[in-house]
């Protein structure tokens, strides 16, 4: 085949969703196998290596993100039904949730506040621009929600999506080590802290530890989404941090 022929095929492929969708699944497949092969080394978290592989490929082939996302959006879309699906593990932990509703509520409101304010305060302290600070503020809630909040408070939604993913990975990687440090062994406590801090990526990690930790992480993730959406814009305005 001539170079010209390949170029023509490439031009066609880069305009269809097929390429973006396929490379997302292939990159994740490779990343996941590498993660298992390394004995679940946290530095090889599948999201990190899949994102790295994809960016190298896109930059190498000079493909813009928008062209990639035409296919990637089909995977991204499944975040919606996956969020709804969290109701099932949650329901299975209902008796435990009934007993723990008050501690959960107190932890939720304080955890959400500490998470948002500590990120904005640290970013301010180290000289981030206001737009970056606001993009960081909702970093602990799941991507679609965080992007909506970011837009509302003057951040950049697409930058927020990246901060959300980075926070999720950090939480998933550091969480179990921090709990060991604090000598916390109760899966309901670990799950709540994981869900408040590291949303869906942390919840995915929590399900690997135990179904109970996963369910509590899913519960905390869902409730903190509500809490953050309701209190964060108001809190930042009250503190005069919106600029």
């Amino acid at each position: 085949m001539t170079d010209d022929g390949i170029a023509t095929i490439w031009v066609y492929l880069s305009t269809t969703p097929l390429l973006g969708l396929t490379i997302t699944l292939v990159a994740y497949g490779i990343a996941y196998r590498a993660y298992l092969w390394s004995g679940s080394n946290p530095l090889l978290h599948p999201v990190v290596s899949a994102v790295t592989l994809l960016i190298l490929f896109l930059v190498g082939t000079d493909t813009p993100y928008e062209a990639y996302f035409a296919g990637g959006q089909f995977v991204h879309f499944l975040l919606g039904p996956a969020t709804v699906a969290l109701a099932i593990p949650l329901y299975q932990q209902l008796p435990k949730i009934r007993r723990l509703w008050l501690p959960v509520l107190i932890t939720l409101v304080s955890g959400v506040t500490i998470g948002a304010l500590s990120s904005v305060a640290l970013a301010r302290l180290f000289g981030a621009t206001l737009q970056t600070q606001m993009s960081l503020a909702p970093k602990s809630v799941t991507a679609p929600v965080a992007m909506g909040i970011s837009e509302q408070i003057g951040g950049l939604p697409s930058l927020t999506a990246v901060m959300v993913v980075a926070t999720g990975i950090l939480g998933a990687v550091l969480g179990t080590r921090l709990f060991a440090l604090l000598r916390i062994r109760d899966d309901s406590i670990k799950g709540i802290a994981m869900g408040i801090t590291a949303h869906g990526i942390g919840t995915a990690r929590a399900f690997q530890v135990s179904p109970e930790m996963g369910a509590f992480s899913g519960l905390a993730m869902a409730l903190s989404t509500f809490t953050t959406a309701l209190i964060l814009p108001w809190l930042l305005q009250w503190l005069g941090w919106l600029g």
Partner: protein
Amino acid sequence: MQFLNGITLLLIFQLIGEFGARLLDIPVPGPVVGMLLLFLTLIARRSVAPSLETASGALLGHLSLLFVPAGVGMMIHFERIAGEWLPIAVALLGSTVITMLASALIMAGTSRLFAPGDRQDD
């Protein structure tokens, strides 16, 4: 068929959630409203249909995959991230550690206070 029925139900709940959130003008995303509605439905029905278990197992089994396209979005923010790498790195790392530790300690303290006998450790 199980998977298809399950995913259909999830999408219906998501759609109702989106619709309800917009109709009532609440600043919470549709899927989260859908999740709460499904949770309440399960409590009322007192059981989980096998189709829902199949579909949720499939989606939640590889939840990490679903974050990959958003993560690739980093490539359009290279310049900003390179220019502000220090505050971004400090804020992400510091805030993640602070939030994780604070939430775990508050949860441990409050559950000891309000739900004694529930903890398995210490």
